[in-house]
């Protein structure tokens, strides 16, 4: 029979659209905004429309039934639980970003601004469910390209333009590297479908490790490293964060990071149905590479953040450091060939998800306050600009303090729950070799020391806000939506810190089963 007339295959192809209905809604809203914005532009109008678009996407995401494609090896989209988590995270982040960017959107470019934001959101959501190298690449570009526009939209000063150009050039380069890596994967396996690639590589690994596969993996990690600001690829972050408009920077700090981790997990096979069959070497090479990346990222990020006097540069480096913490989750997940007994098992992906959500909450919260306190004539730049905010803007300062305490990782904040899970996960990582196992414990100690280092610069901001008296009090933009976003995000940080169970449960259900599953056992045990 002609394979093309296989009904399952046809069903797989035609069923794809059903799986991306919310993304289509987002893109449709964005198109409407960009097209109709030519006729009538205005902040209030397009804000409302975009919010409706996000809400509609959320409704669709909750209601449209998503059957798994019958032939995963042909499907370019898979609606697995991890994809669902990424989608909800993206939608929530988009809603928060809509609110907090309010003061910096101007009436002439509002439609474009919101349209780009929605496109990027759709991109993140698609990255989470892409099951094909081409789809994945396109989804990632769907995030990058609107971001260039967003960075250029208000680019009036040289610093703005430098930031935009820097981001553009490096982003294009990372895309190129990514494609290069994908070409290796395609060349070796003859397929662009991730399920097929993973299966082929896992089969090959059972006999001998392929050095070419490793080259492909390294290139992918390098390219994604740009998006998650892993250390050798982080150079653009401080400059772009400092130069870009704050709302866009908040977007940059969260959306690409979520997408980057989702993409990394997809390509490395960590979202696969069986956490044990991984396409790459799970004993030392790849985990070791990621281990080194994680340690470098968190250490360098924290140390360099110590030296910053500019709030946004500080937040940029803090974002780098947190990328390092989250890489711990990937390290753990990428070395999970076997789970002993019914033991502890906080899976790496699970911890990563919790931390991503916590990170999104606290970083967006911090940026919301920065945005709220900035005015065009008097932007919040130096940390000292925040002096005495605790007295002049108690609510905003409270939200900021909550976000910062969460970034430090103090208990009763979402950041602590995330760190705890990451630490527990790394401690239980059942690695194959004794050498790697000790490295995991070292990783936890390194992360703990880093968290202590990080506390220094976050606490400095808290100290400036509360313990200094205001010399030149900030006016604040009086942007109610931004303040509302800041308060809601801070409250979320607190609530999920005090009672993290809902988030943990959601993440656990989203992560592939890490406990002993029904079928897989002996054969998948060692690579």
């Amino acid at each position, binding site marked *: 029979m002609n394979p093309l007339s296989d009904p399952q295959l046809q069903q797989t192809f035609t069923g794809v659209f059903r799986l991306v209905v919310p993304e289509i809604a987002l893109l449709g809203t964005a198109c409407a905004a960009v097209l109709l914005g030519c006729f009538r532009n205005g902040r209030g109008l397009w804000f409302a429309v975009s919010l409706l678009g996000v809400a509609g996407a959320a409704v669709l995401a909750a209601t449209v039934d998503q059957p798994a494609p019958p032939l995963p090896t042909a499907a370019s989209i898979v609606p697995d639980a991890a994809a669902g988590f990424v989608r909800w995270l993206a939608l929530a982040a988009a809603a928060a970003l809509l609110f907090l960017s309010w003061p910096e959107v101007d009436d002439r470019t509002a439609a474009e601004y919101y349209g780009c934001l929605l496109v990027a959101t759709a991109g993140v959501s698609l990255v989470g469910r892409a099951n094909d190298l081409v789809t994945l690449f396109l989804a990632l570009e769907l995030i990058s390209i609107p971001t260039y526009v967003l960075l250029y939209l208000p680019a009036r000063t040289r610093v703005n333009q430098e930031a935009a150009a820097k981001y553009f050039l490096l982003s294009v380069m990372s895309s190129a590297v990514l494609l290069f890596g994908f070409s290796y994967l395609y060349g070796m396996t003859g397929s662009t479908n991730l399920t097929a690639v993973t299966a082929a590589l896992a089969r090959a690994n059972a006999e001998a490790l392929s050095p070419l596969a490793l080259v492909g993996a390294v290139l992918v990690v390098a390219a994604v490293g740009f998006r998650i600001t892993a250390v050798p690829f982080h150079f653009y972050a401080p400059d772009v964060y400092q130069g870009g408009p704050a709302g866009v920077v908040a977007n940059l700090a969260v959306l690409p990071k979520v997408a980057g981790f989702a993409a990394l997990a997809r390509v490395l096979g960590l979202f696969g149905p069986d956490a044990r069959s991984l396409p790459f070497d799970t004993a030392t090479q790849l985990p070791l590479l990621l281990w080194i990346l994680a340690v470098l990222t968190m250490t360098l990020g924290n140390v360099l953040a110590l030296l910053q006097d500019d709030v946004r540069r500080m937040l940029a480096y803090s974002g780098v450091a947190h990328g390092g913490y989250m890489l711990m989750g990937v390290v753990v997940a990428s070395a999970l060939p076997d789970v002993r007994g019914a033991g502890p*098992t906080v899976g790496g992906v699970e911890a990563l998800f919790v931390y991503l959500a916590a990170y999104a909450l606290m970083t967006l919260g911090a940026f919301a306050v920065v945005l709220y306190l900035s005015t065009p004539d008097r932007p919040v730049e130096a940390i000292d600009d925040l002096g005495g905010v605790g007295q002049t803007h108690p609510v905003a300062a409270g939200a900021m303090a909550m976000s910062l305490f969460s970034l430090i990782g103090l208990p009763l904040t979402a950041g602590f729950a995330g760190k705890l899970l990451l630490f527990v996960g790394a401690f239980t990582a059942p690695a194959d070799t004794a050498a790697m196992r000790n490295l995991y414990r070292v990783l936890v100690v390194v992360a703990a020391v880093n968290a202590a280092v990080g506390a220094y610069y976050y606490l400095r901001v808290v100290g400036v806000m509360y313990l200094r008296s205001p010399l030149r009090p900030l006016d604040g933009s009086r942007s109610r939506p931004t303040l509302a976003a800041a308060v809601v995000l801070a409250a979320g940080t607190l609530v999920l810190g005090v009672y993290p169970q809902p988030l943990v449960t959601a993440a656990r259900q989203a992560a592939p089963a890490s406990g002993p599953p029904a079928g897989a056992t002996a054969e998948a045990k060692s690579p």
Partner: protein
Amino acid sequence: MDRFFDAVASPLTGRALILALVALPFLAALALPLLGRAARRVALVVALLHLGLTAAVVFFASIQISARAELAGAVRDQAALRFQPGYVPGDTAGRHGEDNRTGWTLMSLAPPSPGGKAGPAVQFFLGVDGLNLWLAALASVMLLPAILVSWDAVTDRPGAFYGWLFLLQGAAVGAFLSFDVILFYAFFELTLIPAFFLIGRWGTGSARRDAARKFFLYTLAGSLLTLVGVIGVVLTNPDPVTGRVTFSLPDLMGNVSFYLDQAHQEALAGRGEKLAALQQTQGFLFLALMAGFLVKVPVWPFHTWLPAAYSEAPIGVTILLSALLAKLGTFGIIRFVLPLTPDAAVMYGLPVVGLLAAFGIVYGALCAYDQKDMRLTVAYSSVSHLGFLVLGIFAFNAEGLSGATLHMVNHGLSTGAMFALLGFLLDRYRTTQAGRFGGLMGRFPNYAVFFFLVALAGIGLPGLNNFVSEMLMLAGLFAARDGGAPGYGLAVVAAVGIFLSAWYVLTMLRRVFFNPLREPEPADAAVRPADVTRREFFAFGIPAGLCVVLGLFPQPVLDTIKPDVTVLTKVGEAARARVAGVPVPAEPESPPPPKAPAPKPKDKKETPKKVNPKKDAPKKDGKNPKGGEEDEG
């Protein structure tokens, strides 16, 4: 009457009280910032209310614990080597039963297993036992002087000040009452936030911001390593039967001693690798766990945050810092380090930490002598005394541990009272420079009485509280089963420390209270400073009175402490046997209950006996003070 008592003392009441004990300060912390000037009155009322709740808890719990102690005489198997928290809110045994574990889950790390048993989870696990009962009471009592001393001193946003003060107290009470390791850690770190704002915002010195930041960062850096250690302990000691990890401290204790016991049996049978491996792991975990506690206590050389924090903080906060927060460190050692890494505590406790602590005793004392500012004198004396306390803990025997537990309360009372008394001078003269005062005895006779009383309690005058606990700790250090020499050496240093403390305190008293009258300009030039007011009378009188009471009647407290100290002592004996490579001595536990009290009972009693020969006839087991040393072999 009995029926009424039973109803009131039912576990349900106890649980409600425990919850209220933790919840009340948090609620107060939320509400107080909304009030303006009235905040201090409300704060005082709430503090008194809290004290009432505490009194009720102490009353019921001490009866319950003593009853359990008698029962515990009968049950003495390995399974009993765990803490037994009473009045656990959310007890899984239902409304009236007690099985000493809770069903209130905060965060479960894994889905319930197919069998329907809950997965590993962080729980909201509070309870009382002999070790934390009196510390929780201390936390309740010491808030009163803290509020009273701040009464007029704090004028800037008093609502927020008292709110943070209650948050600090609530976090401390929560940490004391926690039996879940992560919950403890959460409360432990939660103390940092209020302390940071209290020191940085309301501090009196010019360096207050640096002091606040230093305090926060030092403690956080240490306690993050403690978190790593806690996670390590949890994950390396899953339940031997189900393989589930647990965050509940009593269960963890059981698991730890199970694995060690098993390895010990193997080692005795000639296969020692497992025990060696376990002990090596313990070594690392011990270091990680101790990191946070060493900073918090603080033990030299991790004390450098202390002088700044104690002298820059508003005096009311200093009272809480010295009376409560420092105790969190020593309490953490007793509660976590000893039971969870017993072998390492035996191997490295006295030889390594003890050495640091001993150095700190002398160093702190010399620094205290050299200070011009009386606040710093008291701050450094705290370093010195707490070093002694750490020595007492790591003696890891009945005398040392009961002494140390008691000394936490005693030191909290006397040091807290001392800082409160310095608040008197701050209120009137805005300075505590010893050189600027002289002859205050005639000027403020009532003040002098309080000051002498508290100062003498601090240096351990017989009849006052510190004497009892210091003697017990010394006895612990001298106990022969520790292997002699290091214990003796450290005991000598500790004794020298007591002498030194007498030296610097008496020197300070001579300068400030005798000599011709000298006083700096009063804070308010219009008013001539008066002697102790009624408000101050209570601020000083409450802790000072308790110093006397505990000095004269320590036995009720020691009785409550005893069951849990016995548990720890057994853990310690087993650990010592493992380290020495000999079987766990069987006799120390079996003789007392079945046989007549003849051979064994000396270790606990010898000291209380000689400690307070005059007062306590009621001491039950005070016979046979001799011969604590030889029976171990």
